[in-house]
């Protein structure tokens, strides 16, 4: 076994230990489901990730989401091995290379993304591969025998990147810079033609979308029936200004955004590596300038593009809400963070050289210990990014189904309910009597039917496929229509439906104008909710909200849904029929999924509702901490 194998295997083992046991929040459920069914994910649909994910699902160990997450761990471990090789090539000092690896491994962003069903680690691996190829070529210390291979592999990798995450394309900038810096190298027409063919060989993987994205495929998050759809999906047109083309076109507008982006990126770096890393970064820069100024320019350019420039596009505002910070800072900057780790490894080596030159004999002996010292911070990661303990997304998806009566329809909103619901319902075939329809927003009436395939359910729920609300009313009056969010006052549904707080879900029922006898119906619904809530209370399990060791924002949001259930149970048991303790309590629960503040109630504390109140408080307190970047 070589050092490279050891680095790969040891980092892989660490990631596997902390890996998510099942689905994670965000896109996890969607990507795992799409991988299994060979469907499409949200734009740009990520065909490369899904196909590789499918290969991992053949492994006869663990569940589908876990197996797909193993791919993230493997990509992360490979990336760390590449970093190790790169720093070793630059410094010839194993301790410096290990220092880079350990610093990167324990950094919050890198660590957390290595444990989840996400495509960012695959993206990083492709970017680092291109970077390593050109760094090798730029390296003055070593003769690169086969230059053509570097160019051709770069073309092929760019082709592959188009089938994964588009931020990989930014690497074109540093590669162009490297090519300019290698003035003596000129590309032959033959190499260029070969390169073009290889780029197309990578790009052609996107044909997956046309083959598997058809509307009649069993699972597709986006439908690709023709070349117009293909263009829309691959350029992410549905995201409007954030779409690939518009984002690139608008990247040099609003110059103030660069300052905010730089500032926010800096805060991400400091959060990940501490302020002391800046010192190592500057000494690393000194080392690299002395060693090979061309390589230094290449590296710095890549960091600037993947750091401040990308931050301008994603975090380029003066104030960033917690959710945007979490989404943006958490994943987009992985390439910049990885390259930053390369520089600080060089900085570590420079300090080592200075100390050695000053005659300190102990230095070579203690440097290996200092190199592995960052691993101490694994303790922090074990308490804020220990996804092995996070069963909340899986349990929540299960609970929103478990508590429903047979033959119900549930309307899920947003990624965390919809994507995780798809995974459980389609891949896990849980509660197949329930039909899941999904919506991105309540501002317009538009449902997608991934969890309610017409081939299966049109005979069971004919009314829901009729596209007429009046046809749905009888089913609604039989208490068979639910949603994961309440019907908001300003929603498009508001003219048709009301919602009643049930448990984790909300019962949807028609507006008075659709009812023959509104007063009687409302009383029946109220009785039904009281009765059904008791059953739900037996079925759902909020234990995960008190045992997960992650600061995952969405996990905490999901837990707030359990708090809503608990406070409703407390209200139900606060009446005069229960033994009062003589105390009252104010209930003020923010449903963070909707941003709505629940009405403020003052209820009597009874012996019966006290456990619910205590548990609700415990869950709120346990989940009341800021995300890593804002702590």
């Amino acid at each position, binding site marked *: 076994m070589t050092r490279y194998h050891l680095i790969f*295997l040891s980092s892989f083992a660490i990631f596997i230990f902390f890996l998510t046991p099942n689905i994670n929040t965000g896109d996890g459920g969607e990507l795992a489901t799409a991988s299994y069914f060979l469907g499409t994910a949200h734009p740009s649909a990520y065909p490369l990730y899904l196909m590789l994910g499918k290969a991992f699902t053949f492994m*006869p160990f663990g569940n589908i989401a876990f197996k797909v997450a193993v791919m993230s761990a493997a990509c992360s471990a490979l990336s760390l091995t590449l970093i190790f090789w790169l720093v070793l090539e630059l410094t010839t000092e194993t301790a410096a290379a290990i220092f880079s690896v350990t610093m990167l491994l324990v950094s919050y962003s890198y660590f957390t993304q290595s444990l989840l069903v996400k495509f960012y680690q695959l993206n990083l691996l492709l970017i680092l591969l291109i970077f390593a190829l050109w760094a090798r070529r730029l390296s003055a210390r070593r003769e690169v025998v086969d230059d053509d291979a570097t160019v051709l592999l770069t073309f092929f990798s760019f082709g592959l990147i188009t089938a994964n995450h588009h931020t990989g394309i930014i690497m074109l900038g540093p590669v162009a810079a490297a090519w300019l810096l290698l003035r003596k190298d000129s590309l032959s027409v033959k190499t260029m033609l070969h390169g073009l063919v290889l780029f197309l060989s990578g790009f052609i993987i996107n044909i997956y979308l046309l083959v598997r994205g058809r509307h009649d495929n069993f699972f597709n998050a986006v439908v690709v029936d023709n070349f117009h759809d293909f263009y829309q999906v691959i350029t992410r047109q549905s995201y409007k200004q954030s779409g690939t083309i518009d984002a690139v076109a608008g990247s040099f507008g609003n110059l103030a955004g660069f300052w905010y982006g730089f500032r926010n990126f800096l805060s991400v770096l400091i959060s990940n590596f501490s302020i002391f890393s800046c010192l190592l970064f500057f000494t690393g820069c000194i080392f690299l300038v002395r060693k090979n100024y061309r390589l230094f320019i290449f590296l710095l350019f890549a960091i600037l593009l993947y750091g401040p420039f990308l931050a301008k596009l994603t975090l380029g505002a003066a104030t960033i809400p917690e959710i945007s910070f979490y989404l943006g800072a958490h994943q987009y900057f992985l390439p910049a963070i990885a390259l930053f780790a390369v520089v600080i490894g060089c900085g570590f080596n420079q300090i080592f050289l200075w100390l050695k030159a000053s005659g300190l004999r102990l230095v070579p002996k203690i440097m290996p210990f200092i190199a592995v010292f960052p691993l101490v911070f694994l303790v922090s990661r074990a308490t804020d990014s220990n996804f092995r303990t996070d069963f909340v997304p899986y349990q929540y998806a299960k609970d929103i189904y478990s508590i429903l009566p047979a033959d119900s329809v549930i309307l899920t909103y947003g990624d965390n309910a919809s994507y995780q619901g798809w995974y459980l319902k389609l891949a896990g075939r*849980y509660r197949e009597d329930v039909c899941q329809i999904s919506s991105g927003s309540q501002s317009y009436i538009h449902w997608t039917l991934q969890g309610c395939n017409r081939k299966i359910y049109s005979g069971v729920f004919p009314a829901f496929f009729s596209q007429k609300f009046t046809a749905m009313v009888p089913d609604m009056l039989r208490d068979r229509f639910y949603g994961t969010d309440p019907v908001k006052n300003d929603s498009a549904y508001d003219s048709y439906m009301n919602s009643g707080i049930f448990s984790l879900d909300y019962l949807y029922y028609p507006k008075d104008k659709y009812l023959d006898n509104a007063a009687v119906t409302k009383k029946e619904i109220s009785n039904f909710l009281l009765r059904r809530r008791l059953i739900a209370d037996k079925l759902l399990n909020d234990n995960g909200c008190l045992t997960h060791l992650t600061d995952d924002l969405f996990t905490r949001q999901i837990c707030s849904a359990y708090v809503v259930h608990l406070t409703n149970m407390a209200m139900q048991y606060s009446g005069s029929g229960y033994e009062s303790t003589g105390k009252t309590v104010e209930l003020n629960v923010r449903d963070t999924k909707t941003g709505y503040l629940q009405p403020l109630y003052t209820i009597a504390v009874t012996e019966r509702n006290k456990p619910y109140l205590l548990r609700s408080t415990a869950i709120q307190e346990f989940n009341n901490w800021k995300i890593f970047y804002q702590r």
Partner: protein
Amino acid sequence: MLQHIRRAATILLCMLAVIIFRLSLDQWQGYQDAMKSLHEGDYKNAVTYFDHTLNAHIPFSPLEKKAKEQLLALASKYDNEGEPEMALLCYETIRTSRYLTRHLFVPDSKDIPFLDNKIASIKAGLLVKDGIVRNFSEGYYQQMGIMNKDHSPSVLWSVIFVASFLAYLGFIVLWIFKRKPVYIYILCLAFIGWLTGLYLA
């Protein structure tokens, strides 16, 4: 070449060992917690922890077998006590854990017909109680009709597609470094295999 293959196989085996170790730990922890909850009479938590054990699937694991048996016993207990929703939760938990851990085949697939029958019966009973269907058999056959449909991709074509896809990527990289014309023929074949598998899966 042989040395490279041997080295790659060693690494792959080590990776599998790591994965199995992690899953064994999950199973053991899940099972211990479940048994503790069971002894304390906290059946809700017991179901959850047995579910964790089943989802950390390892072929031929005795703990997984025990977890399944415990869940079946719990389901039967709830069935007898007239708590159909809880019984349904237990049966559905076992069934879903089998589908979620499928690979080339569904583990313990011999249990699925039994579970389907139990689940359909419970749901039919609940549907009759709620007045959604006229009689038990209508509800039962409706539910069996839903559960009998499996829309998973074809395993054979999926394997062909994945193998061809990996071969396609691998031979492109090989061609870049070695430039042997035979690689071009192989990668063209792999591409055709990939596309065919993708279409037919």
